[in-house]
């Protein structure tokens, strides 16, 4: 039946074994990732109810209570980070795509953005502590926002540059030919054309910083009470997860899982939204 020499048979068998091993190795790591998601949903959904969103944390050791202050805190801290980070990032992105282009300086700025993106989040926390917390004399939500803004800037700069570079020069030339100054061309023609892409970059960056814990440990610090004042210490969802998970109280562990569901859901939603937007850009091109 089999007319192949033995050596050829061995090569075929070896091929099949190797491919099966590769597929097995590729599938094993999906197990922990699958379990993480399943466990978060399973453990978390048990303790989520409306009260959990509306109430303040209970005193240590008491059961019940919610995360209303952390939910509000995360929105405020991330919101201020966006207000600080986005204008700087977009303008820097405009510089790279419209003025700097392939110059030496632009290349140094790109490398700097890469370096900034690689700085460990805990180091960013130290720096925000030295820049804001120490001069102010106390922990504050604002210092947390500064730390998070530092983390989002490189992401938004690079996406802004990439998107603006995709805007065809014909559009710029058409606008300039109509006598529109270059800066108005950039603001009214180039930036709006790339706006969807820039928004995608901002969403990705927000998804990244919303779950950051390390830079908030010694900046926003956490707070058991509701506060809307960004100059005071403020609670945030990631801080709740960390503090509750490492606490000795079983009820707090339960709440850590519930908070994890809320945070995971927020981050996944932002990521999916950015994907949909990115796909829309790809479709237009």
């Amino acid at each position, binding site marked *: 039946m089999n007319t192949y020499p033995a050596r050829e048979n061995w090569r075929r068998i070896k091929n099949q074994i190797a491919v099966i091993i590769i597929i097995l190795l590729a599938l094993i790591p999906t197990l922990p990732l699958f379990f993480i998601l399943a466990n978060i949903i399973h453990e978390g959904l048990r303790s989520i109810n409306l009260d959990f969103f509306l109430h303040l944390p209970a005193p240590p050791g008491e059961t019940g209570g919610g995360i209303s202050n952390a939910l509000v805190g995360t929105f405020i801290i991330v919101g201020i980070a966006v207000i600080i980070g986005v204008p700087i990032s977009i303008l820097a992105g405009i510089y790279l795509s419209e003025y700097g282009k392939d110059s030496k300086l632009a290349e140094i700025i790109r490398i700097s953005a890469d370096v900034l993106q690689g700085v460990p989040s805990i180091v960013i926390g130290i720096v925000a502590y030295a*820049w804001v917390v120490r001069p102010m004399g106390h922990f504050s939500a604002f210092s947390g926002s500064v730390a998070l803004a530092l983390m989002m800037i490189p992401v938004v700069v690079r996406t802004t540059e990439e998107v603006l570079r995709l805007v065809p020069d014909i559009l710029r030339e058409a606008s300039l030919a109509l006598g529109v100054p270059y800066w108005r061309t950039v603001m009214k023609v180039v930036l709006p054309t790339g706006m969807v892409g820039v928004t995608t970059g901002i969403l990705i960056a927000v998804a990244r910083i919303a779950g950051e814990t390390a830079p908030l440990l010694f900046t926003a610090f956490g707070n058991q009470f509701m506060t809307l004042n960004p100059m005071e210490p403020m609670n945030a969802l990631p801080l709740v997860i960390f503090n509750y998970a490492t606490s000795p109280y079983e009820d707090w562990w339960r709440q850590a899982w519930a908070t994890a569901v809320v945070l*995971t859901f927020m981050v996944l939603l932002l990521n999916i939204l950015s994907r949909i937007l990115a796909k829309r850009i790809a479709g237009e091109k």
Partner: protein
Amino acid sequence: MKFNLAGQFYDDIFRKISTVMALLIIGLVIGIFITLVIESWPSIKAFGLRFIWTTTWDPVSREFGALPFLVGTLLTSFLALIIATPFALAGAIFLGEIAPPRLANPISFIMELLAGIPSVIYGLWALFYLVPIVRWLEIKFGAPPFGLGMFTASLVLAIMILPYALSVARDVIKLVPQDIKEAAYGLGATRWETILHVIVPYARSGIFAGIVLALGRALGETMAVTMVIGNRSAMPHSIWDLGNTMASVIANEFTEATEDVHLAALVEIGLLLFVITVIVNLIARLIIIRLKVK
């Protein structure tokens, strides 16, 4: 535009503002470095180079040596790399070469979403699900059954960095030109022979870049590690030991440090971590630039 003076005026301003914002990014990087040096100066002055190779970390007697944390960071990161690399490589080959796009695309999508899950949530999961598994393993191996420790931290790190290494490697494997693959098949090579002798050698430097990027991430990872490593500031003697990494000791002690020199020592660890990760990231970047030139 030359004759539109008002327009030119605003053009100048706009150009200057955006240039300043771009320069600000260089300024931030330099500022971070200078801040770290200034803040850690009391410790640099007090301990000098001894800081890097002494093992005593004692806030009470104000004696600080960072070697246990350097070892902790390097050990957990490299162990994580060793654990993650075979899986990442197999996954990249599977998604980039073996699986049909209809299967590969949704898997890649889900994997990238999971890569976005915050590290504190990985830590939470590891604390309640991975720790009991490791404790069971430790009993099997006759090690003290802490459950927490360097090995647990390495496992979480491996799970966390895997999607990064995988997606870079997959992208490079996809870039291998179709014609050289077909040439190999045309010569009668099996799929495995093509992967081993054509695809992997061609994509080698890209795969390496992915691993280096993953290393950069593992070195700086804080929360998940802090939650499961056990936080013991002594020299670890085995992978089952409780330990601390550079990032985790900062996270644990920074708000509790009352002595100036203790705080400065923690910042100096941050400075070391900053320098190490910057170097690792620049190496990865260099490899990727060389790839693009090729």
